[in-house]
C-alpha cells in the first residue's frame, strides 16, 4: 500500500539524517530513487533545486513534494508527518531527560564520528545530481555527443563564483537558469 510505503520511507529519512542541512539528501535519494523509484534522478535534481529556493528543511520539502507526486495531497500529509515523527519522539525524550545528561559527551562523540560519513554521503548524492546534468544518459563519457558542454560550463563557472565571492546560492542557481533560458531562446 502506497501510504504505508511513503510512511516507512520518510520515517527512515527523519530518523537517520544527522547534522541538518544536506544530511537528509543521501537518505532521500536512497529511498525515493533507489528503493522505490518514485522519481528519477532529473526530478530529484529539480526537487533539490526547488528545496534550495524555498523556505523550510529539505526533508520536509521532499516529503511534501514526493508525497504529492506519488499519492496526491494525502500522500504528502502522510510523508510529512512521517519525516517529522522521529524528531518528535527523539527530541522530546532528550528534552525530558536533559537534566540527567547535561554534558552529552556520548552524543557529541557519536556526532563527531558521524560527520565524515555524512560528508561523503552528501558528496555521493551530489555526484548523482551532477553526472546526469553534465553527461547524456547519466554515464561518464567524453565522446562528442555524450557531453553537455553548456551544462558543464555553468557548473564550473558557478563553482568558481561560489568559492570566490560567496554570493547567495539562490542567485547563482537562478543565474545559471536564466543564462540557459536566454541561450535557448536565441538559438532555437
Amino acid at each position, binding site marked *: 500500500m502506497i501510504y504505508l510505503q511513503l510512511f516507512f520511507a520518510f520515517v527512515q529519512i527523519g530518523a537517520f539524517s544527522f547534522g541538518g542541512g544536506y544530511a537528509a539528501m543521501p537518505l532521500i535519494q536512497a529511498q525515493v530513487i533507489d528503493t522505490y523509484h518514485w522519481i528519477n534522478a532529473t526530478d530529484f535534481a529539480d526537487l533539490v533545486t526547488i528545496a534550495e529556493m524555498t523556505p*523550510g528543511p529539505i526533508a520536509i520539502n521532499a516529503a511534501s513534494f514526493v508525497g504529492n507526486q506519488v499519492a496526491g495531497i494525502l500522500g504528502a500529509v502522510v510523508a510529512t508527518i512521517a519525516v517529522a515523527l522521529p524528531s518528535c519522539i527523539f527530541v522530546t525524550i532528550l528534552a525530558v531527560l536533559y537534566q540527567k545528561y547535561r554534558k552529552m559527551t556520548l552524543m557529541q562523540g557519536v556526532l563527531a564520528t558521524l560527520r565524515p560519513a555524512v560528508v561523503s554521503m552528501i558528496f555521493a548524492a551530489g555526484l548523482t545530481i551532477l553526472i546526469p546534468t553534465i553527461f547524456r544518459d547519466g554515464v561518464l563519457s567524453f565522446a562528442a555527443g555524450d557531453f553537455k558542454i553548456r551544462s558543464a560550463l555553468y557548473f564550473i563557472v558557478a563553482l568558481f563564483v561560489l568559492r570566490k565571492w560567496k554570493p547567495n546560492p539562490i542567485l547563482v542557481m537562478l543565474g545559471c537558469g536564466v543564462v540557459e533560458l536566454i541561450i535557448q531562446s536565441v538559438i532555437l
Partner: protein
Amino acid sequence: MPSADNKHVLRRLFLSTLYLSAFTFGGGYVIITLMKERFVDKLHWIEEDEMLDMVAIAQSSPGPIAVNGAIVLGYKLGGFPGILVSVLGAIIPPFVILTVISFFYNAFKSSFAIQALLTGMRSGVAAVILSVVWDMFMGVVKSRDWILYAVMILSFVLNYFLHVNVVLIILAVIVIGILRTWLNGRKEVRP
C-alpha cells in the same frame, strides 16, 4: 515563563514558528538563530544559557534542525501541547509551498521556458552542493584524526561504489562513535 495565559502562549508559539518557517531561507542554523532572537532577546521567555542547551539538543538529534528546534522550544514553553503547536507551525509553510509547486511542476514541466530554466539551474545546484561538501571535507581534513579519514573514505566507497544501504552505514558509524567515546572516557578515568 507565563503559564496563567496558556492559550496566549500557545498561539504566540504557533504564530512564531509559522512565521519563522515561512520566511527563513538558508536552513536550520539560520532559523535557530532567529528563534533565539525572538524568544530570548525580545520576549525574554527563555534564559540565554538554557537556549544554548536547547540548540545543542536540536543540532545533535536526527531530523531537520528547524523541526527539532521547534520541538525543544514547544516543550519548554507549553509542554506537549506546545510541541504539537510549534511543530505544526514549522511544518505547515513548507508543506503548503511544496504542494503548490508540485502541482505547477507537473503542469509546467513540459513548457519550454521552465525546461530551459531548470536545465541551467541543475548545474547551479550541483555547484552549490559540491561547494558545501568541499567546506565540510576541509573541516574533516583539519581534524587530523585518521579514524575520521577512514570513516570518510570507507563510507564513500560503500555508499557510492558498492551501493550499501545508507541507513546501515550510519548505524555502523554510530557504533564506532559509541565505542570511541567509551574508550576515550576510560582513558581519561585511568591516566
